[in-house]
């Protein structure tokens, strides 16, 4: 009797078969058995098809959990070995459809392409300096940068920044939303940033941990946003005293995948304002989140803060999902199902990271020109280190301070210049962490191909800050403080 195959019969792609045998059970005609030999590439035994009785029901294809284990034959009679392994470049098959960039086919539009609307700098009247605590200064900096959308979840010692925003934003046409968790807060930022607007959150270490997933997605989708992490003692719940033990997370661990973000480390209330403003500029310039690494002490400490000469009215980037006809074609996503596309996207991100590393290193150096001892410190410990430099100078030791303002990228160019000038200087890293700043320094030296100078450590943890006196004593004695058993 003549037989009509309504559907193509299956073809096996042995290199995709994981030998689960679901197809064996699925086939009503017993066409499929397990082969005797291991497949050399996969190390498992694939099935073999005997298609004499096959009626093309494709139940096996449906049963196969692997997208490409069993595929319909191209033409009747085509053998498994003739079927081509799918790649992104050809035969999209049904799975390719999930890729949102291809979901609706090539997009065409007769509309003019959206353009970048630049922000405007508006003059601010000169005012008397203000006396502000760090979190308030950071909030003010964000407002001056044009941020009108803040999302957050209360956590000590960062909450006052969000509370101030909750008070003022309604008067400025903006809004603060207390999310149900840090996970929700960062994803609200994802949405707001996707619409092209500046947004921010205030959090502290345990909350920052929860935001990492969202930060990775924002980096993948190339969205700007500012995350203020007022670091507290850890790990786990730890305590609410100042620590710097999230440096590793911020410089090396922003969620999964190939991620980096500029990490700014203020050390005064004035810098809380200035760097918060700068953070928005950088976030939009590079289409990437920016992290502000403060510590619990800085968040609470009040100091004199001068306002800048201008404030910013934000523009609208061309890529924004803004909801008018011009922006109709924009798509914000971090999914790239094709491996070659995703590799290209990673190359693009790497180029961006390289660009940032070249252009955005920032550091303050103080009394380094003739220094024989270089203290390296950031955030609040840098204030203690500064005091120690003065004391050491008085004691006849030529000490200087290198204060990284960007922790990523690490200001290695500055460091290189100083070490070239002062090749015999020894370095003392002062930090409220078990060596995470020192790790950044060592990594940067290594990448720069510089032989590490002698490095001494002054480390406190758990919310205890290194004190001026103990830094001086450590330098004079040439002895580490609490470096034993660390990760260095």
């Amino acid at each position: 009797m003549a037989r009509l195959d309504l559907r193509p019969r299956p073809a096996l792609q042995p290199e995709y078969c994981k030998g689960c045998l679901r197809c064996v059970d699925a086939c009503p005609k017993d066409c499929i058995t397990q082969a005797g030999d291991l497949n050399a590439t996969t190390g498992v035994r694939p099935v073999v098809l005997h298609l004499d009785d096959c009626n093309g029901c494709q139940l096996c294809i449906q049963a196969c959990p692997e997208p490409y284990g069993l595929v319909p034959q191209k033409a009747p009679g085509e053998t498994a070995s003739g079927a081509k392994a799918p790649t992104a470049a050809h035969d999209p098959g049904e799975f390719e459809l999930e890729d949102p960039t291809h979901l609706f086919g090539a997009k065409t539009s007769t509309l003019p392409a959206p353009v970048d609307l630049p922000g405007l700098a508006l003059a601010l009247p000169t005012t008397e300096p203000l006396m502000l605590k760090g979190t308030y200064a950071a909030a003010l900096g964000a407002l001056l940068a044009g941020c009108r959308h803040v999302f957050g979840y209360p956590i000590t010692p960062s909450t006052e920044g969000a509370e101030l925003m909750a008070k003022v934003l309604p008067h400025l046409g903006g809004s603060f939303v207390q999310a149900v968790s840090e996970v929700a807060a960062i994803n609200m930022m994802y949405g707001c940033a996707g619409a092209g607007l500046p947004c921010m959150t205030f959090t502290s270490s345990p909350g920052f941990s929860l935001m990492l997933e969202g930060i990775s997605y924002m980096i993948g989708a190339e969205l700007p946003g500012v995350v203020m992490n007022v670091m507290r003692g850890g790990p786990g719940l730890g305590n609410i005293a100042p620590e710097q033990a999230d440096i590793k997370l911020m410089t090396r661990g922003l969620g999964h995948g190939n991620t980096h973000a500029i990490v700014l480390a203020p050390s005064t209330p004035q810098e809380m304002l200035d760097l918060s403003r700068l953070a928005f500029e950088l976030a939009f310039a590079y289409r990437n989140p920016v992290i502000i690494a403060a510590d619990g002490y800085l968040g609470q400490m009040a100091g004199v803060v001068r306002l800048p000469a201008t404030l910013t009215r934000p523009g609208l980037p061309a890529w924004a999902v803004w909801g008018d006809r011009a922006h109709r074609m924009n798509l914000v996503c971090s999914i790239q199902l094709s491996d070659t596309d995703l590799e290209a996207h990673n190359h693009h991100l790497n180029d961006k990271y390289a660009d940032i590393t070249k252009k955005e290193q920032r550091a303050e150096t103080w009394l380094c020109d003739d220094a024989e001892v270089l203290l390296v410190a950031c955030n609040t410990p840098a204030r203690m280190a500064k005091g120690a430099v003065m004391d050491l100078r008085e004691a006849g030791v030529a000490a200087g301070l290198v204060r990284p303002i960007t922790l990523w990228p690490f200001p290695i160019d500055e460091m290189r210049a100083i070490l070239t000038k002062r090749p015999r200087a020894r370095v003392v890293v002062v930090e409220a962490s078990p060596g995470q700043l020192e790790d950044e320094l060592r990594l940067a030296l290594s990448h720069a191909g510089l032989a590490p100078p002698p490095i001494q450590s002054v480390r406190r943890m758990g919310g205890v800050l290194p004190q001026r006196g103990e830094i001086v004593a450590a330098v004079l004695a040439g002895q580490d403080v609490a470096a034993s058993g660390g990760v260095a």
Partner: protein
Amino acid sequence: MTTVALGPKDFKSELKPIWCPGCGDFGVLQALYRALSGIGRAPHEIAFVSGIGCSSRIPGYTTAYGFNTVHGRALPIAQGIKLARPELLVLVAGGDGDGFSIGGGHVAHAVRRNFDLTYLVMDNQIYGLTKGQLSPTSPHGLETATSPYGSLEDPVNPLAYVLSYGAGFVAQGTPADMPGLAKIVEEAIRYPGFAFVNIQSPCVTYGQEVQQMKVHKATMKTLASVGHDQTDRIAAMRLAQDYGKALYTGVFYRNPEPPPTFEALVRERQTAQGERPAREKILDRYLQRAT
């Protein structure tokens, strides 16, 4: 399991609570001491898990094994303990923020899985530990540190939520009626399955006026006094709608035929004899034994 005569004092730890004077959580703690002495399980047979918040400090003030864990994650942690040591009496406690904001996603699934857990939420309608921000149970319009012009959100209704998730035991109490609360908590612990008690526990420092002990005393109504039938889930649901308006205390719902708990089902599966051969077959397949 040891059942011995224990008094409330046996469950009181050396630690002195650092709650604000007058905090409702003191009354909850007293009620808990009483309830536990009624149950009669020795302190070392009890694991007491909490999240983070003022209320979550409570395990430390008992002699049970205390776990002051992660903000919002007490329920998953308790489930881990219960699976590892099903013999333990596992209590879970926390605040309204811990349970219904950051941990809100876990509640439905803890209920659905029906571990034998007792979940005590000290609902003060505010964030106490972080000093007075909006809580998921704060009433619409409430002015707090993060809602200075009044909240724009409707509150969660913990009673109605947990009832509709399908919990077998749902009750409410207040430390304004401490003996009543002790009885409710004891009943909750005795219920074999997931039991939830919403405790209206006033925050004297950041809480609202209407949420204080003397108002509770004046307004509370026992469910028995309104003739409520504990086995009627629909009636319970109807009464639960008054959350935030009326303060009902007592058991809203108790499943008269408690289904088997998750840990019992797990145990059953582990010991099922008939399944051995099937297991062997699976092993054969996955280990690709040479034929």
